[in-house]
């Protein structure tokens, strides 16, 4: 069987560079398999996060040949083997070691979001057709690839005033929950900085769960912010109808 050459980032925040490893290719092999091969046979201290190895936990995100990917779902036979396969940590987060980054910012953003708050006296009847769009958002596995690729984070470093696509998806899942009863529009505008997003759809492109982040989450949320803060008529209508959730 042929060999592949992997060029993997080794190092920490202060010092680092790439190192090349030769790995024998097996049928159906994914990049994470290759990294595990290196750990088991060459360098046991190569730092990699992973859990399920089946695209369900979102732990093994990295940049393979410059593209943000889950390494457990990136097939070696889909990559050109005439040159080394590069594997770098996600660029938008500080490196801890090798491919492991500090993603704690995401957990801090999440804490700001008011939880699901049901309407008083609800009977807990919900219909599938009202839930389909929310279930799309609930597919998110928190791989943070969308956060990594978003230029507001990646190039403009707006972590303090911006929530990022992952948390717009999360807010959308709450705002569009058929039985939720609070508005998170002010949070979106003031603390999560949804206005910074200029809908380039980079997040949608990298989502391994194929969530249409921009079209189905961010744009409706932007509209909601506009309605609530910049459209007095809509605001009045909502007040009268007592239902802040537009279809």
């Amino acid at each position, binding site marked *: 069987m042929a060999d592949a050459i992997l060029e993997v980032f080794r190092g920490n925040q202060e010092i680092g560079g790439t190192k090349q490893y030769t790995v024998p290719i097996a049928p159906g092999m994914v990049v994470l398999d290759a990294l595990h091969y290196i750990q088991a046979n060459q360098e046991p*201290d190569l730092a990699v996060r992973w859990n399920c190895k089946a695209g369900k936990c979102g732990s093994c995100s990295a940049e393979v040949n410059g593209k943000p990917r889950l390494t457990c779902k990136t097939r070696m036979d889909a990559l050109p083997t005439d040159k080394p396969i590069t594997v770098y940590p996600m660029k938008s987060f500080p490196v801890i070691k090798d491919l492991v980054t500090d993603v704690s910012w995401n957990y801090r953003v999440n804490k700001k979001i008011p939880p699901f708050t049901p309407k008083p006296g609800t009977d807990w009847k919900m219909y599938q057709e009202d839930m389909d769009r929310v279930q799309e958002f609930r597919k998110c596995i928190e791989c943070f690839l969308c956060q990594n690729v978003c230029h507001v984070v990646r190039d403009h470093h707006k972590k303090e005033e911006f929530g990022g696509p992952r948390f717009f998806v999360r807010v959308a899942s709450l705002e569009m929950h058929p039985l939720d009863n609070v508005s998170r529009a002010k949070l979106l505008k003031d603390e999560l900085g949804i206005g910074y997003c200029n809908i380039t759809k980079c997040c949608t492109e990298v989502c391994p769960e194929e969530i249409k982040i921009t079209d189905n989450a961010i744009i409706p949320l932007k509209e909601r912010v506009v309605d609530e803060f910049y459209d007095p008529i809509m605001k009045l209508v909502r007040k009268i109808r007592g239902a802040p959730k537009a279809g």
Partner: protein
Amino acid sequence: MTNQTKYETHEHDVLIIGAGGAGLRAAIEALAAGARVAVVSKSLLGKAHTVMAEGGIAAAMANVDKADSWRTHFRDTMRGGKLMNNWRMAQLHAQEAPERVRELEQWGALFDRTSDGDILQRAFGGHTFKRLCHVGDRTGLEMIRTLQDRGVQMGFDVFMECTIIRLLTDGKRVVGAFGYWREQGRFVVLKAKAVVMATGGIGKAWRVTSNSWEYTGDGMALAYDAGAELLDMEFVQFHPTGMVWPPGVQGILVTEAVRGEGGILRNKAGERFMEKYDPKRMELSTRDVVARSIYTEVREGRGSEHGGAYLDISHKPAEYVKQKLPSMYHQFKELADVDITKGPMEVGPTCHYVMGGIRVEAETAASSLPGLFAAGEAAAGLHGANRLGGNSLSDLLVFGRRAGLGAAAYAAKAPAVAIDDTQIAEAERDMLAPFDRGEGENPYSVHRDLQETMQNLVGIFRIEEDMNKAMGELEKLKQRAARVRVEGSRLFNPGWHLSRDLKSMLTISEAVTRCALARKESRGAHSRIDYPKLDDQLWGKQQNVITRDGDKMKLQQIPAQVVPQELNELLADDK
């Protein structure tokens, strides 16, 4: 300088080790009871193994099949477990699961719906009625995210990427834990009045497994080291359907929901072989039966191209398959180049779950050590000799909650905690020893050989000769594990982490093998080639208990519980 000032130290009322479904549910309940709570997890929050649970949560809500009730769920669970279950746990579980599911919904979980707007339930192996509340085939993700967000909002402290290497004891009482931060490699002392073990299972000791790197039996081994009892360790579940091809994905779970939704198993001759093994329930027989059936087909030369069976759902409309089994659709398409709406999957047994674990009381989840509680896969009792699909997620909710309550109640009355520095010093010395060795083996090669040993000698079908050999191999592996060498620094060093996880895996591997050798019968997931029949007279009436006796592992038999008359009547055969 004392250890209390030498190490980063945290103090809580309740310390929960493990942040999967059981740990998070325990944390929520302990918080609600007013305790100060910390949750420790080896991974990032939200990545625990619960996330991989696919098929659903079993709860007799009777939304689809109106005739369902807790009594039928109790009966199915007990019969599926070949009556080795702790009957009281099985009763509490069946009675409380529906309320636990409703609670999840009230915290924001969105289950698939019936046309009436209720929670939809699907069929699963061994369940008489359609009982599994689900979200497509990603139920575990929905559950963990719901619990995680609830807990974070309520305000527990989360210690992510932290591995516990020793329970700290004061006499017999458990008073906290000692561990290290995986990122930096620094040690940390976690003092607590009560500890809940919610660390999951042991599958990483086998080569073909659906389990992630985290599943190294830490909780059971730590509890054992501290003096707790382990129960029923011979009962290891091999899920019938793991992926078999390509090699890199071998063992990855193929949800039972494929069969729940109508998937059919065939051998290479196209025969629907379950007709031979369980003509009544067919593909929806219990997992032990289906796993053995597939294994037997393969062994007798009727396996699929890569040594499994064919599982086919392509007779259902493509859109239906994609809606009900979306992650299976993607998993096979991306990892195996198979479109499951068009053709069959190849599947075979994979080590999935351990029914045995820390022995606990049904009501409070208290272990045999004061101050130590256990829930979820780390605890034993509910599932007996074989777990039904869907009963794991409900287990996490029902007994996670009870463990949280039990631990908070214990902590409220417990005196202040005193930590013994010598235990900490000893644990630190052992942990750092692999760095100091001038030469020694790579921990990965020891792990590989352990997996081969357990896979080949203590697998689905067991025989005395093999298991005696396994005992010898485990002894050699222990020697090797004690001499491994670790390179590099303490900064996020997987080789170093594995050097400690290996010890836990070796402890539980020995416990499994000893119990499996002792149980001279076949029951549920424990199949002996040399004792192929149930032995109700002897082994139907006793259970294996493992304890530590100095450096030696001690195995004893205790009488099995007697099911009270009124519940026993529910268990009778229906003719």
